[in-house]
């Protein structure tokens, strides 16, 4: 089972996770995960903010996102982890069967 990221800032704990509702909310607001590589300056802050939706939905306006982001170490690793967490809801739905798909339909490419 996936576990949320916990951040402690000024004695307050924040949990970061991407549920399906959080991903849907972000997409509704125009976020596209594929833009992270092309336009990281715009999309990474949106990705970071979106991670607060699942567990702090009713206090989103009160969270000091910029201050928390500035105070965090290992930002590169955090971004990679957030991207992995963002894709987890869709990956869990589209996983291959554990048995290798025995008995399922198969396909081959002929080019």
């Amino acid at each position: 089972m996936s576990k949320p990221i916990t951040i402690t800032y000024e004695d307050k704990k924040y949990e970061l996770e991407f549920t399906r509702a959080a991903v849907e909310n972000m997409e509704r607001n125009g976020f596209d995960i594929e833009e992270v590589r092309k336009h990281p300056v715009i999309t990474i802050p949106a990705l970071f903010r979106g991670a607060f939706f699942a567990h702090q939905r009713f206090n989103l306006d009160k969270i000091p996102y910029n201050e928390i982001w500035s105070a965090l170490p290992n930002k590169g690793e955090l971004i990679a982890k957030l991207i992995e967490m963002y894709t987890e809801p869709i990956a869990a739905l589209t996983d291959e069967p554990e048995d290798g798909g025995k008995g399922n339909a198969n396909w081959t490419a002929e080019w």
Partner: protein
Amino acid sequence: MVSEASESDSKRGGEDCSTPFKKSYRDVFNECFPFYLAIGMTSEQYWDGDPSLVRAYRKADEIRKNRMNEQMWLQGMYIYEALCDASPLYHDLAKRGTKARPYSDKPYCLTPEQKEKREENHEKEVYDKGKAHMMQMMGIINARFAKQAEKGDNNGNGS
């Protein structure tokens, strides 16, 4: 997006049949939602719960289907056995008074422990039956000896 399309494809106005179908994550979530509701997941679990919970629900659904299949197979076995037991009655040329074989008085043993328990009970039954029979025989023989002894005494006293 779940699948990628090249920019040149999109500029062609979408008429090219080789352009892959573009779906947002939201579209996929909404498409899969009814299935997970059908297998017992709640709306809150699906949208707001642990994203990887769907894997457990899929596995549970597979286990449930296998169990249902086994139960139906077992029921078929009981029905088949019942029909076989009643089969003497279906014979057109069956003699008057033909009876069906009795239906099994016990269910099938489904686990090795149940089988072992049943064998133990059977052995105990056989033992108890044998013991009761021996006690009965003993009683008869003892009664015979007692009678003979009584007869002997009477003859001795009489003479």
